[in-house]
């Protein structure tokens, strides 16, 4: 995610720092690429960024870039161009908006000067469309594409987050783990050839240890938010701070920023400072963020004292990334990569985790995204909605697209939420 919308109030200093860092990071990347002709990589959010950084190849996340384009209100023009070129409206817009900003770059000037030509694109083949989108994008740039295939899981432990930290070898079947390790080793070979630098395995272990420390800090933030009488930090600012660090996770800056964020949240808790004083309803957002309308998430504070407390972005850090026992760091990294975002969408994993999170965070109501075009991310939704309702948590499905604002009726969505709050959530 980019920084929270410029129009949304920022309550934390850390949020401003995170936004400034990202902008400067991207400007520096452009200077390195254009002035020094250094390579960089354009990657899906779920590939192991650590490997790229450790051989000196900065990696830009497709989802981060899409969110930037959407937050700058530039998505409609690119998506119109994509439609005009014959792509039907059922195709995923989130993963392809970045491609559209390259392929149809003549329709408008992209944010921050646009993406330079990457040396390499890298994607994990989660959804069926990823191979297509990244192949077309690589063609548009004239760049190489490296794919990490996605074997399907046959063993399905429902409470996956209880295995991920210490028993990650049990979480991923041995044949899948071996496959991903071998693919990552090939990726390393390719990255070493591009950069001319060898991957230092000791440095990889240290980086993963730093990632663990960073996510432990986020775990502590999560506990602060879950247990404070009123939530001390808005969901949008959680996301801004978490994602700015996740894209460069385990680096010195990331760890320092995570700690600064933590300390500021802790200070607010200790001083009794709430994001929405007089909190009446605690909400969770299930799904990717509405990047084109992040103001949506603060729209019910004044009218209903309803505050978004939870999204997957902070919570998934500690549960999805921490791996203890780093004797074989590549295997540990592969165990994170092998199933990664499946836990967020698919049965049995997603519903079990989200209900647990809702209980931990004392959630009163859940808004569940029904994505218009991200069809694979739309699966598992009915299991999640029913599991939440069975747990006594009211659910409101929200139909929308995370980057495509063209069919989004902001007023109607807000009216639906207000009605939901008044009829199902806030007990007067």
């Amino acid at each position: 995610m980019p920084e929270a919308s410029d129009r949304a109030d920022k309550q934390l200093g850390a949020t401003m720092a995170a936004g400034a860092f990202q902008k400067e990071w991207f400007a520096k990347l452009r200077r390195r690429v254009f002035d020094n002709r250094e390579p960089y990589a354009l990657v899906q959010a779920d590939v192991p960024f650590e490997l790229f950084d450790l051989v000196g190849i900065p990696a830009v996340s497709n989802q981060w870039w899409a969110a930037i384009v959407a937050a700058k209100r530039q998505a409609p023009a690119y998506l119109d161009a994509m439609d005009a070129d014959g792509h039907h409206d059922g195709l995923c817009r989130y993963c392809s908006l970045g491609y559209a900003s390259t392929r149809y770059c003549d329709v408008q000037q992209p944010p921050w000067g646009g993406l330079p030509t990457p040396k390499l694109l890298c994607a994990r083949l989660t959804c069926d469309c990823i191979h297509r989108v990244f192949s077309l994008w690589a063609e548009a740039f004239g760049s190489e594409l490296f794919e990490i295939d996605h074997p399907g899981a046959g063993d399905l432990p429902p409470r996956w987050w209880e295995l991920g930290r210490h028993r990650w070898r049990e979480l991923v079947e041995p044949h899948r783990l071996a496959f991903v390790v071998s693919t990552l080793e090939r990726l390393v070979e390719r990255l070493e050839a591009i950069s001319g630098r060898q991957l230092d395995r000791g440095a990889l272990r240290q980086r993963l240890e730093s990632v663990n420390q960073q996510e432990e800090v986020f775990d502590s933030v999560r506990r602060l938010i879950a247990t404070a009488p009123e939530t001390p930090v808005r969901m949008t600012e959680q996301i801004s701070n978490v994602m700015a660090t996740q894209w460069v996770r385990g680096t010195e800056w990331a760890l320092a920023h995570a700690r600064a964020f933590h300390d500021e949240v802790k200070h607010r808790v200790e001083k009794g400072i709430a994001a929405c004083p007089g909190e009446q309803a605690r909400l969770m957002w299930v799904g990717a963020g509405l990047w084109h309308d992040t103001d949506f998430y603060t729209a019910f504070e004044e009218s209903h004292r309803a505050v978004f407390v939870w999204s997957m972005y902070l919570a998934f850090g500690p549960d999805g990334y921490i791996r203890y026992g780093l004797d074989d760091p590549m295997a540990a990294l592969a165990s994170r990569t092998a199933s990664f975002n499946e836990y967020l969408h698919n049965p049995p994993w997603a519903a079990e985790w989200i209900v647990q999170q809702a209980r931990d965070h004392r959630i009163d109501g859940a808004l569940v995204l029904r994505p218009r075009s991200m069809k694979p991310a739309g699966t598992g939704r009915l299991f999640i909605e029913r599991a939440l309702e069975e747990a006594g948590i009211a659910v409101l499905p929200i139909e929308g697209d995370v980057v495509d604002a063209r069919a989004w009726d902001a007023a109607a969505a807000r009216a639906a939420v207000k009605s939901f709050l008044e009829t199902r959530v806030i007990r007067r």
Partner: protein
Amino acid sequence: MTTNAIVRDSSRLNAVISWPAVPIEIVRAAGLRPIFVRGGPGGTATTPMADEHLEPGIFPSRLRYLVDAALSGRLDNAACIIVPRTSDPDYKTFLYLREFVRRGIARSLPPTILFDLLQSEGPDVRAYDAARMRVLFDELASVAGRQLSLDDLRQEIVHTNAARSAVRRLAALRKPVPRINGVEVLPLLSAFWQLPPNDYVSLATGAADEIAQRPPIERPRVMLAGAPVDGTALHAAIESHGAIVVEEVGPWGSGAAGDDVDCVGDPLLALADKYRRDAIGPRTPIGALRNSIVRMLDGIDAVVVSLPPEDTVFGWDYPALRDLLQARRIPHVCLHGDPCQPLNSADHARLETLTGATAAVGEAGHA
């Protein structure tokens, strides 16, 4: 055989399969009968139990029927359900079926097997697929309660290769000179997946002998591209406008058989290579699909591109396909409905325009 007929016939020997990317050679070697779930021609049936649990617009008709049959107990007597990892909706169906059992939504299901066939082009994929082929071989032997040897499998490959040859002979009667229309030939071709090979050879050879005697059909020759169709409804609609479907992208028509499987060396590796390369679906690599479409376009007068509501993949290929067709002056039309359902009047009008344009081009060419 329609899906409803399939499920009524379920018996302890039936292996119910969601998509033809599962090696029927292994299924048959285990003594099981492959039964493929399809969206048509019984596509007008309702799926109320599946609709309660499957999100709309994501799962194609065939998977809705599979889930509906599973939830209503119509698959209880099947030997197993096999779902290949060759599309996201198939994989999600596997996860859902397992979840139905875990949550008690389904009373019971036969063993539900994920066949984890990968189709990307990395060097690690070949060994992975061969290993998964071995696992499937062992799992099906266990399901069937049989001891299986690689020689059993080799024998089945030989029989199936004979059936592949019969498919190719039938397909040759569609192009370049069509002697049979698409509605008639598609069931003959797709029966390859379900009939015992020897029976299929006998049926297909007899049919081919008879069809070869027919006069050529002189109508605009249409190819079906986009998302593979698994029934004849779209063929029938196109042919009702005076054209003839002579080619389709997908595993049910002329592409059902592909090349023979080598059975001299390791049969599991040979099957892994064959199915990774030839299985047509959303995870077929873009380059491989483009190349095969270029080959298929020879002798084609018009193309109908089916991009149904649940499509997440083939729409990405469309602009390049459109440019290719324009460069070769082949008219085309896109249809966005469910190919298992009757076409609406607007789509019929598009087909009428397409076949009219094709006929005009043909006449100009002959003049």
